[in-house]
């Protein structure tokens, strides 16, 4: 047998238990959305920001809230409106009469998990402030930089249907979100549980942190260690290449999208109990990761359809 022998790494039992506990705790509140829950978790594991696009009342807010609670993260909700100013989000410098100095009063952005509700209602100026913070993990007020807490996640929601008086995120901003998911209506059984069960708010109160921020950062580290073989890199490359060359797509995937795809697939593999990535991992996260970055040549097709088209066209090497 040529080459050095390499032992196959397996997921540490403690890590596996941690994931299971988080998903189980959250699933008590978010019923029947295990897949979306797992995707959100994968997004957080690779330090990505999440965009949830769906109708009101399907549990977007609850999802963000329950994630914060199970992971033991500080939580802030910012309701975006058209009159919201950047300072309302980021914070302001206030002149203190006593000391004669300016002191910074941090805004609601200074939390570990931010829920940016209805992000498309805010003006582009405010959106930019948020997106800059997402990218830089710090805010700058009056020339002074203030680091945001670690870890830092933004879960933004937008309502895709009521577009009057909104400022839809431009493509360059959409690209900042690692994932875009939809929640959708619950299935029959979940609906029944929801109807019979207690109020979600109350349930939320009863959720206790399963792991803390420190443990979460450890797990993030672990996700990066998941093995990506050459064969899988080939597959990723073929996907990117096809998206750029095929006339079915108006614009190809960026290198940033490619890296995001790899990292998310790693996190998904970890959540699935593997320390190596399979093509299936890439396929599962493909729609959430590339759906909002890829547009079909005909503007009609949905993100899911476009991603599906890409997936079906490229053979697994």
């Amino acid at each position, binding site marked *: *047998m*040529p*080459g050095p*022998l*390499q*032992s*196959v790494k397996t997921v540490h039992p403690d890590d596996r238990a941690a994931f299971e506990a988080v998903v189980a705790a959250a699933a008590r509140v978010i019923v029947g959305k295990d897949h979306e829950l797992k995707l959100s978790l994968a997004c957080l594991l690779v330090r990505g920001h999440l965009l949830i696009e769906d109708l009101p009342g399907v549990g977007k807010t609850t999802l963000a809230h329950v994630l914060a609670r199970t992971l033991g993260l500080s939580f802030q909700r910012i309701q975006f409106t058209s009159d919201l100013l950047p300072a309302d989000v980021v914070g302001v410098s206030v002149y203190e009469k006593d000391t004669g100095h300016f002191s910074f009063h941090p805004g609601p952005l200074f939390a570990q998990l931010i829920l940016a509700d209805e992000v498309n209602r805010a003006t582009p100026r405010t959106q930019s402030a948020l997106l800059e913070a997402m990218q830089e993990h710090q805010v700058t007020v009056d020339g002074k930089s203030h680091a945001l807490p670690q870890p830092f996640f933004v879960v933004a929601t937008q309502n895709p249907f009521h577009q009057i008086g909104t400022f839809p995120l431009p493509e360059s901003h959409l690209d900042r979100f690692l994932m875009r998911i939809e929640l959708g209506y619950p299935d029959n059984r979940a609906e029944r549980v929801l109807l019979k069960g207690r109020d979600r708010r109350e349930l939320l109160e009863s959720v206790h942190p399963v792991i803390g921020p420190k443990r979460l950062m450890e797990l993030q580290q672990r996700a990066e260690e998941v*093995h990506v*073989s*050459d*064969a*899988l890199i*080939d597959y990723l490359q*073929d996907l990117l*290449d*096809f998206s750029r*060359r*095929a*006339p*079915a797509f108006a614009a190809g995937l960026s290198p940033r999208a490619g890296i995001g795809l790899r990292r998310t697939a790693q996190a998904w593999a970890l959540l699935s109990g*593997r*320390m*190596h*990535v*399979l*093509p*299936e991992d890439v*396929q599962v996260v493909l729609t959430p990761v590339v759906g909002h970055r890829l547009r079909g040549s005909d503007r009609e097709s949905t993100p899911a359809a476009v991603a599906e088209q890409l*997936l*079906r*066209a*490229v*053979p*697994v*090497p």
Partner: protein
Amino acid sequence: MKPPRASPSSPALTLERIAWLVAALLVIILPHALRQPPWVITVFLALAGWRILGFTGRLPLPDAQHPPLALLKQALGLLIFVVVYLGNDRTLGRDAGVSLLIMLLGLKVLEMQRVREYYLVAMLGYFLVITHFFYSQTLLLACYLLGGVMLLTASLIGFQDARRALPALGRLSLASRLMANALPLMVLMFFLFPRAAGPLWSLPKDAHAGLSGLSEEMSPGLISQLGLNDNPAFRVEFKGPAPAPSELYWRGPVLARSNGQTWSRGVTGDLAPPPIQGHGARYEYTITLEPHNQRWLFVLEQPSALPAGSRLTRDLRVLVPNPVVQRLRYTAQSYLRSVVTDFNPREIAEALELPRGFHPRAIELARQWRGQSQAPIDVVRRALEYFRSEPFYYTLTPPLLQGDSVDEFLFDTRRGFCEHYAAAFTILMRAAGIPARVVTGYQGGEYNAIGGYLIVRQRDAHAWSEVWLGDRGWVRVDPTAAVAPNRIERGIDQVLPEPILDMPFELHNVAVRQVLKQFHDVWDTVNNRWNQWVLGYNARRQTELMSQFGFEPNLGNLALTFVIATSALAFCTALWLLRRQTRPDPARAAYDRFCAKLARRGVRRARHEGPQDYARRAAVARPRQAGSILRISDLYMQARYAGDQRALRNLQQAVRSFRA
């Protein structure tokens, strides 16, 4: 490990792409409009136009949806064949072939629907480029066609450019860059591609029909026809100084027989050559002769050293075995003063023959002179004096001679070109009992200071006489010189009514003329270089070049080497491409065998299906083998995706023993 890339769906025929292709084809076809009957181009235009109008929906196209039109298209194709066949005198030669190609290409443009056909039309377009060189191989045409090739390549690029990422200019610049990349290969092929000594394949007999120049016969008006013909006959480079213009008699066909109207070659001319005693300065020079489809070469009177492969005849013509149909470069030497005194009774007898029943007045006049003179040389002087003193005119447009051409010219019209004077003079001499003959060829030439050579054009064509003066042998006498000394001393331009450069406005300004002449010289020099170094690069020159590099100069060797080298290159490229595609990953190879076994049982893996998904599906479909299916898939995933090299051997074993 790289798999074959998934290919994007094939490009479609859009209006823009068709328009590009048609435009490129038009540019390429255009020069044929000069040679082809106008309806050929018209048919192409009509068919291409039909296609474009049809594409925009303004006309129905002859496709499957319109059966009558499709039938019409077929009939049109047949009709084209018939018309071309009948229109070219029932020969399918070069002209007919090109006509057919152009019109049938139009039909193909009309009917093309698939991608393959687009490529076919483009390739035929490239072929059409080559057909121009059957007619002409000038630098200008080559440059023009290079532009055509660029357009055609750009339209192919546009066809491949699925997203239309390149604007028109970008396509053209990419096409020119591609062509620039191909340049080294082109140069290499130019030098190394095996060249046959003759034409590689024989052109149909109409190929050389249009070559103009001197013919082997002379009748009034035949040479003056050439008077406005600017085409070069040949170019001469002298080794050392050139003789004075008045000494430049380029000897061509010698005509010893007359039937009263037309002069033609005598029977004694082809006998073995006489000894020539040359004295005075000897000139060595190299001539680049334009193809004239005749067997003779032009040399300066009189030749002392002949070009390789040629022979001299009794009447001092230089002949080659085959008609010159390609530009020919040869070196010869001549003495301006030479004596040929070898007496041959048959030759002299032929040089005294008079056509029976013609030229009574001329014969009468000559007999008169003979009676009044002592020696033949006096008669010659008398005749020249006659031309000089009587009102004779030298003109390119002599009046038409209807009766006895010599008598009418000598006594009535008195206006003629060199052939009139030479013919009349020769008849006069013969009538006076002095053996004489007509020599045709060229006289003079124009010196090109830029290129350092003399260019002799068709309009320099000339005819003069030779008389036999006993002990002095054959002596050249040029009656034209008596009438128009400028013609001989300063060249034909001095006596032609209008300068060669046909200007739309009067050019009295000397400076402008000078510049024009300069420009003309530069252009001709460039053309001459092109002729000598590009077109003149023939089998012999190739052999010489090869032997300089120590290569065995042998056409067979060259061809063999070329074939071997090209095949080796093609083979290596193919091997490299194939290897790149199927460099086998052992785990993948084993897994493929496993998938093939399952596929035989109807469980086929989709191309985009991952191993885990496939394993689950196969396990459900073949529950008895579920265990081994899952195990093999697991081993494969370990080996290929988890980097576990130990799994490979187990995988190979498991696949070997797997029975689906």
